[in-house]
């Protein structure tokens, strides 16, 4: 029986101590500092600064997986949406709807402002709360990485609330477009260093990371009477450099690279930057650098990849 009493005593003390630590007001009951006389009370209602109690995940219209946003390909724009709930203890009517704002800041410092408005619904909101819906357009060339959402609102007394806890990942996207035609309208079978009529071959970066490229070449076979005649891939060169003496695009291996049958070769001097349209381009130059005299080609026919079906390839690396 004694053991039982000790057990309960210890338990009771523990409970009391815990309550005392958990509730600052528990022992106040024993305090003697209690006002007992009449007290004059004056109340002044002051404006309470608003707070932002919730910021949603950012959603993009290309995809939204694991809280991420993807750039839109083809040089497009991704529309992103985010909402936030603001609270003002003076009442939701004290929130200044016109001041609701949202900005993104990228890892490289890019700042982007969105537009916000009162959302048509605010599910589960108190009478002191309002839901704001915002959207912002993100360009394909914005830097990948962690972006911070800055949601803000003022009340009618210009008290400001800001929340910057929400972040999202703007993903890395790679795409390139190029001019299309590479041809030599007419070539000599004895001369060396014959430049393509398609130079410069324009490369445009439609993603958000700087790009290097490789070219995979194949021999060109005759399209006329002698289809077995072939200009081997190794007779072609490519470079990001042009001109000079010797011609840079033909200067293998110092400034240009010779193509290799079915094997991708990285083209020196080509780096297509990420950037605004017009600032996201680089040129590539092609050349038939050796003399073709030893190949004993039929001069009266064209030469193309169509005979073998092996397309040349440009690969982003």
């Amino acid at each position, binding site marked *: *029986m004694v*053991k*039982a009493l000790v*057990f309960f005593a210890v338990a009771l003390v523990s409970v009391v101590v815990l309550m005392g630590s958990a509730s600052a007001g528990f022992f106040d009951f024993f305090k003697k500092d209690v006002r007992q006389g009449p007290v004059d009370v004056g109340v002044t209602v002051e404006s309470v600064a608003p707070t932002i109690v919730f910021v949603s995940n950012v959603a993009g219209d*290309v*995809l939204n*997986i694991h809280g*991420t946003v*993807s750039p*839109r*390909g*083809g040089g497009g724009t991704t529309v992103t949406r985010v909402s936030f709930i603001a609270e003002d203890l003076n009442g939701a009517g004290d929130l200044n709807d016109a001041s609701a704002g949202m900005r993104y800041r990228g890892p490289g410092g890019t700042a982007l402002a969105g537009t916000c408005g009162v959302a048509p619904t605010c599910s589960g909101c108190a009478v002191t709360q309002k839901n704001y819906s915002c959207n912002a357009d993100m360009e394909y060339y914005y830097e*990948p*990485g962690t972006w911070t959402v800055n949601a803000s609102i003022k009340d009618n007394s210009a008290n400001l609330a800001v929340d910057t806890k929400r972040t999202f*990942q703007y*993903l*890395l*996207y*790679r*795409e*390139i*477009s*190029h001019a*299309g*035609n*590479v*041809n*030599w*309208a*007419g*070539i*000599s*079978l*004895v001369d060396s260093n014959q430049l393509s009529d398609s130079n410069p071959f324009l490369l445009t970066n*439609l*993603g958000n*990371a700087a790009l290097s490229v490789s070219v995979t070449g194949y021999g*060109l076979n005759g*399209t*006329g009477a002698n289809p077995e005649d072939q*200009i081997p891939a190794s007779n072609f060169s490519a470079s990001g450099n042009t001109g000079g003496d010797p011609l840079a695009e033909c200067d293998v291996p110092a400034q240009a690279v010779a193509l290799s049958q079915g094997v991708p070769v990285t083209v020196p001097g080509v780096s297509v930057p990420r950037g605004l349209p017009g600032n996201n381009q680089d040129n590539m130059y092609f050349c038939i650098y050796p003399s*073709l*005299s*030893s190949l*004993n080609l*039929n*001069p*009266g026919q*064209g*030469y*193309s*990849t*169509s005979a073998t079906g092996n*397309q*040349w*390839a*440009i*690969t*982003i*690396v």
Partner: protein
Amino acid sequence: MKGAMLVFALVVLAAGVIADGFGVTSEYYSERPLEIRAGESIDTFFVIQDNGGSDLTIEAILLEGSEVASLSENIYEVSTSATGQVNVRVSVPQGTPVGTEYNVKVLFESVSEGEGGESVNFQTNIESSFPVIVVEGTSEQLGSGEGSNFWIWVLAAVIVLIIIIFAVLKARK
């Protein structure tokens, strides 16, 4: 004699508008490596966007990192202006030393038919890669929340035991 003449016919390598305009989105990349613990598996993805004027067939080929990464499929049919998701599972064996690095590289190759005749389109391919770095901890430690639950259960069991002992002692008296 033959070699001294001019080739008059057009030599065409590629012509026309790019038919296979596509791009690839990556969740991880060189500046954002995938961090993983020994014994852990993480699913990630690439997303193919078809921005050309026709449907595409894209082949995904794992060039590097096959010891830790696998693709859900290799052939992806992507409609015009649509996207296709390429799921990648990365698994690192137990006992892999911390700091071990792998590189996962995938080649996305358009296998759509080119145009006929001499107007052959340049095929456009895209390589995407990301580093995988083994970091501190084991896959068991990932469930730290489960570890906390374990100790809560131990505490509960001790309390129940005390109550039972107390009840037994009381019954004897």
